[in-house]
């Protein structure tokens, strides 16, 4: 999967959980500051990402994933 495909899939998840339209989700966006996503919603995003990409994001990794690009990079590296 290309980074672009992962970003598109992640943007769909973010739209579902946080309401930001998928086409407005940029790679540089911060979950907390730009997307208003709290730690509980991050848990939902991690589970949805696992279902979509087949990549498990352990809790100790999840807390370090601050931006959309961080998740894209993690998924690309792990898949």
């Amino acid at each position, binding site marked *: 999967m290309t980074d672009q495909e992962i970003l598109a899939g992640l943007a769909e998840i973010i739209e579902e*959980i*946080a*309401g930001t339209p998928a086409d407005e989700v940029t790679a540089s966006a911060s979950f907390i500051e730009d997307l208003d996503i709290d730690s*509980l919603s991050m*848990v939902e995003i991690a589970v949805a990402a696992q279902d979509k990409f087949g990549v498990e994001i352990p809790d100790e990794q999840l807390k370090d994933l601050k931006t959309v690009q961080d998740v894209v990079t993690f998924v690309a590296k792990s898949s």
Partner: protein
Amino acid sequence: MGNNGQVSVVVTGLGATTPLGGDAASTWSAMLAGTSGVQRITESWVDALPVKIAAPAVVDPVAVIGRVQARKMDRCEQFALVAAREAWADAGAPEIDPYRLGVAVSSGIGGIGSTLSAYDALRDKGWERISPYTVPMLMPNGAAGWISIEFGAKAGAHALVSACASGAETIGYGIDMIRSGRADMVIAGGSEAAIMALNLGAFAVMRAMSTRNDEPERASRPFDKGRDGFVLGEGAGVVVLESLEHALARKARIYAVAAGAGYSSDAHHISLGAPNGEGVTFAMKAALRDAGVTPAQVVHVNAHATSTPGGDPLEARAIGTAFGDDAAGVVVSATKSMTGHLLGGAGAIESVASIMALVDRMAPPTINLDDPDDDLAIDVATKPRSLAPRIPGAPMAVLNDAFGFGGHNVALVFTEYIPLATEA
């Protein structure tokens, strides 16, 4: 100053979302028109139950709140937030010191729907598929928390839980918050969203619910000989309470005086009312005393009257006892005949109805009262009835009863607001 030198508390905002309408005004006009909100449940889960009727809310709260916020909230919390937004806007949405704004909103059961769906997720998909918002969705104080966040209320957010008295007890607590000087304004009320198989089954197994499935609109019939139990409704009611001083300073529109509250606990049985209605009588008398109102000032009672065979006559007798010779002039309405029983929301939407009755000087009808109990000694309105002061010069008063499993009895008294010359 109000009775006993206490701070006067007034009502400056109303909100409701109910089986009769998506706001307080439409709910009230549907009540005056004698509309039933009870209907047949169409979902297949009802097939396994003896009860196949309920009174669903007219307006889906998700459509009001929006999908993204709503998915973090139980339906019960959603209803509460919708009614709170309406009430706060109705009060003029004033700027206020956050530490002077309180919340007292609760529910009888809380987020039972979220509890059930979380359990389904746990059983079918595993613990990781439980929504991370499950705990804040199922806790009965969740609505109070959400409302405090929405309006920045920092004086304290409280959720007094007393089953079907919850929505009245919160209003009583809100009055106390203002009297004690903890807040200038309090958003108070109750909510419930419990129309689902487990709850219908659990109340049905107590033999508490109507099974008049073939005539949904005629199923809720308080004080009528043909009643066979209550009908479950859903929704929320919220009032904005405010110190008179604060309301006058900002020239707020004042609906009524939230004059007093009375309480008792039956200490008798966990779900059955005490045989002679003693506790209920005590709560009503205590509310009148707290409000500084004489029985002859009371023109209208919005009864708890749920349409159960045992409960309605107890309350009717208690009204007779509490008001004595003055009971004959009290017009009683049982609006659950139209809304069904909103459990923890009931006391709140019935307070909204009581206040509107006072404002419009009109008691709403009790529908389906075709054949009253033989010994019914109170005057129950079957059509809208106009209300007039019984004592010249004294403000009219209305009383709202709310009782809950556990033996909780609450009565609230609201009076007309008559400005003093110095206040006008």
